[in-house]
């Protein structure tokens, strides 16, 4: 299949893996920022093709994982109200807040709907003028343009029954938080190709210089990731620290400027709490003053009470690349996708969930009973 098979070719993958092994002379630790890349690495076993000196750490780039409990609680509170149609991307419905998830709200009679685009939620608002339609606007720079477009359209049309619950996050501040931590182990980054498709990569250049860290803008198919690792290792071995673009079939240095303009128009940069990590300054997007009337948190006056994370969960350390999922004593035992203790197990793209789904056999106890943890049919 075009645009798919050529990026999953086994022979080319082996060639890249051999090339990486050839240029690697000592241990290197590389972090892929995006949950989509983590998912591909674990699903395709890309890490198992690499020489043992290369360690991959899985970064904080899973929007489902890093959405704070408080926002999930606000979503549940708004979605539970009569007269509300609550719209969300599918994978947010299963994420538990401190008490319930959106699926439970739905089963209790709440009108919770999965949409494929925020613009669909605007259409629902048009068709249901007597209802309040709320969209859960989460994600990185990737989803920000479409979410901005939805709010922008609602304003242009004067749709007073539409609002968004915003918890947008930005990649570069999170990378900087990791790099400036005294626990940092990351020596090179694979940046997220789709984020850079929107934003370009000029904002990564100062990071590469300041922290002397190579950053390779990388796609999501196995060969993209292998080539990204190759370019990153080559920089590390040569002592360079530059921003390189592996994903040139989609990414340009300046990015998608009309999309950036729309983001700047509708949103403003705000401090943002990241689930498992904590608050990072200037790391999120909130609605700009001209659009604040579309802020669902304000419209429904949901307070943001502090919610406690499970103390056994080490997802913050996993998201920062300090620990690997299997290093957690609760992994696969107390903590499974059916009963997640924290951020990185709740989403399909969370590092813990990916390891559970594809690699559980590597950590499974050598005993027969109580086999796999998944759902009963």
């Amino acid at each position, binding site marked *: *299949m075009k645009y798919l098979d050529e990026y999953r070719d*086994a022979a080319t993958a082996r060639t890249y893996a051999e090339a990486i092994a050839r240029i690697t002379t000592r241990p290197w630790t590389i972090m892929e920022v995006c949950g989509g890349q983590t998912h591909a690495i674990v699903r395709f*076993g*890309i890490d198992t093709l690499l020489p043992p000196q290369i360690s991959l750490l899985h970064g904080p780039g899973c929007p489902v994982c890093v959405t704070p409990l408080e926002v999930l609680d606000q979503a549940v509170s708004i979605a539970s109200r009569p007269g509300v149609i609550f719209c969300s991307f*599918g994978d947010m419905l299963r994420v538990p807040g401190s008490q319930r998830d959106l699926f439970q709200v739905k089963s209790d009679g709440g009108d919770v709907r999965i949409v494929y685009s925020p613009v669909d939620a605007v259409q629902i608002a048009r068709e249901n003028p007597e209802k309040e339609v709320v969209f859960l606007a989460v994600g990185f720079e990737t989803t920000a343009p479409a979410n901005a477009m939805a709010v922008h359209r609602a304003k242009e049309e004067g749709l007073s029954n539409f609002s968004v619950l915003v918890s947008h996050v930005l990649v570069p501040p999170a990378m900087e938080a990791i790099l400036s931590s005294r626990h940092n182990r990351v020596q090179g980054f694979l940046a997220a190709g789709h984020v850079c498709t929107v934003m370009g990569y000029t904002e990564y250049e100062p990071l590469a210089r300041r922290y002397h860290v190579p950053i390779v803008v990388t796609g999501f198919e*196995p060969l993209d990731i292998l080539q990204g690792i190759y370019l990153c290792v080559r920089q590390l071995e040569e002592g360079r620290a530059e921003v390189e673009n592996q994903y040139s079939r989609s990414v340009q240095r300046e990015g998608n400027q009309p999309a950036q303009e729309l983001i700047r128009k509708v949103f403003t940069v705000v401090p943002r709490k990241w689930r498992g990590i904590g608050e990072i300054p200037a790391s999120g997007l909130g609605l700009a003053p001209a659009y604040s009337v579309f802020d669902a948190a304000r419209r429904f006056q949901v307070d943001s009470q502090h919610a406690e994370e499970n103390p056994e969960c080490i997802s913050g350390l996993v998201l920062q690349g300090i620990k690997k999922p299997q290093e957690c004593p609760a992994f696969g035992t107390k903590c499974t996708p059916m009963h997640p203790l924290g951020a990185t197990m709740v989403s399909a*793209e969370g590092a813990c969930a990916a390891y559970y789904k594809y690699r559980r056999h590597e950590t499974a106890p*050598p005993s027969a009973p109580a*086999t796999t943890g998944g759902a009963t049919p």
Partner: protein
Amino acid sequence: MTEEFVLQCPIPLDDNPTVQMGHGGGGRMTRDLVERIFLPAFSNDLLAPLHDGAILPPVGGRLAFTTDSFVVRPLFFRGGDLGTLAINGTVNDLAMCGARPLYLSAGFILEEGLPIKDLWRVVRSMADAALAAGVRVVTGDTKVVDKGHGDGIFINTAGVGVIETPLTIGPMSVRPGDVILLNGDIGRHGIAVMAEREGLEFESDIASDCAPLSGAVHALLEGGVEVHCLRDLTRGGLTSALVEISESANLPMRVDEEAVHVQDGVRGACEILGLEPFSVANEGRFIAFVPAKEAETARALLGSDASVIGSVEPPGDQPPFVRVRTALGTARILDLPSGEQLPRIC
């Protein structure tokens, strides 16, 4: 199946264009529905007496008995509808027991306000599917629920079939060394229904694979293949079928990802939506576990779309995982999805 049944609907639509509460009341309206919709469609001598139950002749063998309930939104999708699902689903469950499906019951729960022409269309599809599968609908029931308390039509079908083979077909018969055969490409039903339900438009027309499997199973058994286990791939897809059998048999398995055929349209849709083709629903696909020495015979009997996708391993010191060899030659395990597969954010 595509004939102009709308025009042939035997209930005059001008009088009763929709299902009324009275159609479930047991009176004249109920009889009208039975005589003008169900009897003409399912016409057979076992149903004709309209007694409280059907009296079946002796069948000369062990019986397989199963039941399944069918709900789908929308009722009609590319490649099938609720009616074809309701017949083929139960036919296939019987076939997976190694049985030749014979008789089905059909219970309908209709929502008040359902257009009669939709009911007629579904019932005609059931009649066509029953004919194709060689089964007869011999007893039935109809209830009507208030508007808003159903989703158009819910159907339950139960079925009996006769087992004419001495083999015990099920997970308990799976042995290390068995090969796993799959009878065709996967994922079309789930994507076809999702496309219709969510109004997704793909460049290619993906049609459901909904089909009776009794013929294919009959071919294997008649061909003398020592079938150890059969499982149709429905909700949860190939993943659920393999993982469940692996757990029941307490044996690990290996599957070659590249041996599993997925149409380009389905692959594309799965990529866009963030779904795993292995876990997408099917309605006309099954896996068969047979001894390795019979693999080629079985594959030939199942036709050119069938392939050997993997094998059963000897028991190990770990829980019985299903390991997949990926296109890159690396390994991962298959895991049951936690619930419904959900489209991802990005």
